[in-house]
């Protein structure tokens, strides 16, 4: 059986790659993917801990998180399309009308 520390290490690695992606990359779609990575890191944790404790609560929670991630992407992509129609860009740096 894979040790829990290894799972924790991998999930935290995924999480920080996600955070770094959100902070560094400027493309809206890539930011969206990085956010998905953060959610999946949490999912990995939930499933591993549920397996360890022998209950299914964590696994059910992970399923719900996946459902939520899908809903979030739907809204996010819709907003990205609306932005692209107005401004012909999906770069976060071009969202600058409201700065100040």
């Amino acid at each position: 059986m894979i040790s829990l520390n290894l799972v924790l290490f991998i999930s935290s690695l995924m999480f920080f790659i996600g955070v770094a992606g959100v902070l560094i990359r400027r493309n809206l779609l890539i930011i969206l993917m990085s956010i998905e990575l953060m959610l999946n890191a949490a999912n990995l944790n939930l499933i591993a801990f549920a397996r360890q404790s022998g209950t299914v609560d964590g696994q059910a929670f992970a399923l719900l998180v996946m459902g939520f991630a899908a809903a979030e992407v739907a809204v996010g992509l819709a907003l990205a399309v609306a932005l692209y129609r107005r401004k012909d860009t999906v770069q976060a740096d071009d969202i600058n009308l409201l700065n100040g």
Partner: protein
Amino acid sequence: MMPSFVQSLWTALWQDAPLVQAPFFLIGIASLMLWPGDLLIPRDQKRRWSLFTQIILGITLYLVVVTPHRSGFSNMFRIDTMTQAFQLICTVATLATVVLSKKLLDLMNEHTVEFYTLLLFTLSGMLLLCGATDLVTLYFSIELMALPIYVLVGYFRDQERGIEAGVKYFLLGAFSSGIMIYGISLLYGATGGTTTNFEGLSTALVAAMDARGTMVTLGVLMVLVGMAFKVAVVPFHMWTPDVYDGAPTPITAFMASAPKAAAIFAFAKVFGVAFHNIPNVWTFGMEYMAAASMILGNVAALRQQSMKRMLAYSSIAHVGYMMLAILSNDPNLSIRSFSGVQSLWLYIFAYLFMNFGAFAIITFLQGKGEGERIDDFRGLSQRNPWLAFAMMLFLLSLAGIPPLIGFFSKFILFKMALERGFVVLTVIAVLTSAVSAYYYLGVINQMYFRSSTGKDSLKMDRMTGVLVSVCALMVLLGVSASGWLIDIVDKIKL
């Protein structure tokens, strides 16, 4: 013995169903409104949905009041007087938003059923969030609340500012919820995968603190960051001014009251119940955030030219005061002592009326084709004395000037914090609220002591008139009704 699956399902469907009657009623009706409801209304008659939504919200108010008091769904959800009180604030705020939006949507010719259904969906999320007593239900009701608001912010999709605000809000909101869910997963792991229930966590985390201290600390701090993003406290406030500025004005009014009330109540419950026994982990962070919000919110509001941005910064400051109430939930008393939350409720109740009154007036002026800059309020007293007087009441109440309700709620909150020993924070709060009087009085100065050049008098329409008058009445009578209010607040107990 664990109940069998069939047994649990039976309990959930039959015994516990009344607990969620109001949110489920909203979800059901909103879905029916989208289909087949929208097919029945011809394209040029969509404004009828406004009245229909108001009726639905009236029924929701009734359903919220008659909900039985107990916990259900395997202790994941719980209704008590406190919860109901916050649910009522959320419902009333949504109702006021619907009333306020009608004129603007008429003007933009943008009446669609989606606007109203999104409002109903987000309200159902708030009602669930108020009752959540488990990290799972907490997380999902926060998302149910937030997702429709992202869309509502970008509702006018041919206005660049609105879409930009929507995208910005979405990115930061999704990012913060990613941080929060990772924190929740760490906490779940720290307890050995046994519980996510608030009451369960309050004991399990103390035990876990010895064995897996780092995990608990990281988890609690991540949940703190996620919640702080949702309620917009410094240093997680960057999105607030931009989003408040870019969103349609009624939605700005809505965001400043209803989701904030629900999120801050959830905040108080998570930290007052689940993390209540490990105060060393989070108290310092929260004290820092409260102080920073009060200072930065009020100082940044000083130099704003736009009314909406000014109110956005002032809302950051007000959330700072509300954090004071969360902190003064005495950790030494039993878990059930929620007197800090009572003063929190009173504060949000007062804030609801001042805030909606002010935004109703801004929406009305925007509807007349005028801007939202503070300069645009110049000479308002000559053009419509009642409107200017009402605006003055709201602004003075926001500043916390005595005979108004804003003073009353602030006074009780500060007194509570002082009794709990937060002397430095209370001093900062009093000083910064003196600073806030400066920029509120600046607007009053523009309205009363500058003359408007070449603008005609304004005539109020009926809806705005009613909304502004109700808010003004509440703000004025707040203190004369204080005895009555305190009685109500006294009844609000867990």
